[in-house]
């Protein structure tokens, strides 16, 4: 099963980049011919382009929340999704992009799309490269959760 793990976020916007931090960490743990690990700073249509042709996509991203604890990590199905990187005034959301693509007869959309979401109370608005303390502690949790997700499908995965 071909899987893509995509860390989404902007590394120069502090906590916004947490998905990319997690992806970089995962690269140290996973080496498997069926697994691709990549990063993206984009959303919507462009994000969809990146996950086409895979059977499964795992998207690691910050999720804005008003109720959850800051730094909590959650596994979310795309279909349950309520918050997402990828919606800005100049793009459509990933869900919308998928809906459009399906209407056009696109057949390369992954059958399974999972979000590993890092809950965030505040939207980062300041340029910096480091993560805040709370969000930094979420990185190993998100790494662990992603590895569990992967091992479900690939029993032969050797994580280091």
């Amino acid at each position, binding site marked *: 099963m071909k899987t893509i793990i995509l860390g989404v976020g902007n590394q*120069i916007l502090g906590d916004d980049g947490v998905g990319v931090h997690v992806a970089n960490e995962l690269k140290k743990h996973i080496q498997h011919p069926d697994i691709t690990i990549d990063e993206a*700073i984009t959303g919507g249509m462009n994000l969809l382009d990146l996950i086409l042709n895979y059977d499964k996509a795992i998207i690691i991203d910050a999720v804005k929340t008003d109720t959850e604890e800051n730094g909590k990590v959650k596994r979310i199905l795309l279909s349950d999704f309520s918050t997402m990187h990828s919606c*800005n005034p100049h793009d459509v959301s990933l869900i919308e992009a998928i809906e459009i693509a399906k209407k056009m007869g696109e057949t390369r959309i992954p059958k399974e799309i999972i979000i590993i979401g890092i809950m965030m109370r505040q939207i980062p608005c300041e340029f910096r490269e480091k993560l805040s303390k709370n969000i930094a502690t979420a990185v190993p949790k998100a790494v662990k959760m992603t590895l569990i997700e992967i091992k479900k499908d690939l029993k032969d995965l050797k994580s280091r």
Partner: protein
Amino acid sequence: MKTVTIDPITRLEGHGKISIFLNDKGDVENAYLQIPELRGFERFSQGRRAEDMPQITSRICGVCPVAHHFAATKALDAAFNVDPPSAAKKLRELMYMGYFIYDHTLHFYYLGGPDFVVGPDAPPAKRNVIGVIEKAGVEIGKEVIKHRAYGQRITAILGGKATHPVCGLPGGVSKGLNKDEVQDIKKMVDSCIEFAKFSLKLFDDIVLKNKNYVDLILSDPYTLKTYNMGLVDKNNKVNFYDGKIRVTDQQGKEKVKFDVKDYYKNIAEHVEEWTYIKFPYLKIVGWKGFQDGKDSGIYRVGPLGRLNAAEGMATPLADKEYKRFYETLGGKAVNSTLAFHWARLIELLYATERAKELINDPEITSQKIRNPVGKPGEGMGVTEAARGTLIHHYKLDKNGLIEKANLIVATTNNAGAINMSVRDAAKGVIKKGNVDNSILNMVEMAFRAYDPCFACATHALPGGMPLEIKVYDCNKKLYKTLRQNL
């Protein structure tokens, strides 16, 4: 009339948060659009290697990486006192046309278009690109996706990466074009020209032939008589990549024209206590508050600003459309906010025609694509981002590290005008305290026309533009909250 101050606590919350204040008659007194402003760029940049700026700044915004990339690269050309070879300039401009093709296509069909194609009164669930496809047909949907992808592929061939280009260097570019790539681009460009012509025809059929839409475009709530700004070439024709910054007045007459190195002599920034956004205005006119007219220094940028600030388009088909635009909408300047959409399509046609000129230029395969840089100093660079004039300004130390950095981005240039358009749209629909959900769409249409880039509005809900409107009565008490996509 009551004086209203807004609790500064609200200034950082949410995206597209709008506060509307009513007077004692229940009519709109004032309205404020709050958008999150990214902070700390200057401090973040200090001490970094200057040549990293085109890559770093292309990450500022997921929306216009190419525009930031080249505004930064051009600022570095100036800071290192080097003029790139003419082939390098053409390669940069060609890549820039690819960016305009995908960006303008996305906006018209996915974001702005639904209001017109599906209709301003359609329910929000239908007023999206899916609704456009349902109305226009799946075949058209496929064409939209194909040509947006062409724009991205042109950008990727030239820039190394579609979303975050790596080609711009002070003094030129890192990569030229080979013959196969030229053939590939030629084919895509020809197809894009036809697609742009088709898009204008679609606009004609659906919008311009519908009197209700034309009346809406020309209606008072969507009219704003500001100054207009955009880059022009030596013949005062619209240019996206290079030229002088020209400002025209409400009748289309030239007010000022300057090189980017003189931007700070011509543009000043006004600060309001309720937002971190600084509102740029023309120094020569001055800041007179949020009002339009010749005595107020507020100006507009972006497709409508550019067309108004110029005297035509530099390619034949787009120039023909340009003339028709002014004939149809009553001469210069066009001050109708919703005309941004038409202007955007005229620019799409120009971008495709200009791309054809550039790809057919024999020099485009030249290998002389970089000149040696001089000593580091200070430099400014300007480009037209899809949504308006974008300025980068760097001061380097003797080792080529950033000492000072300043950016004026397109949406900031439009900030004053967007705020007024939101207020006027609200005034048009709220009377005697009657507030209902229809104002969400009327207000959204007002600012969506500008195609604003709310820099960090990235973590938001799917399904459309998150928007919250709070309406306060004359005692500043919260009267009603309207929300969508939140």
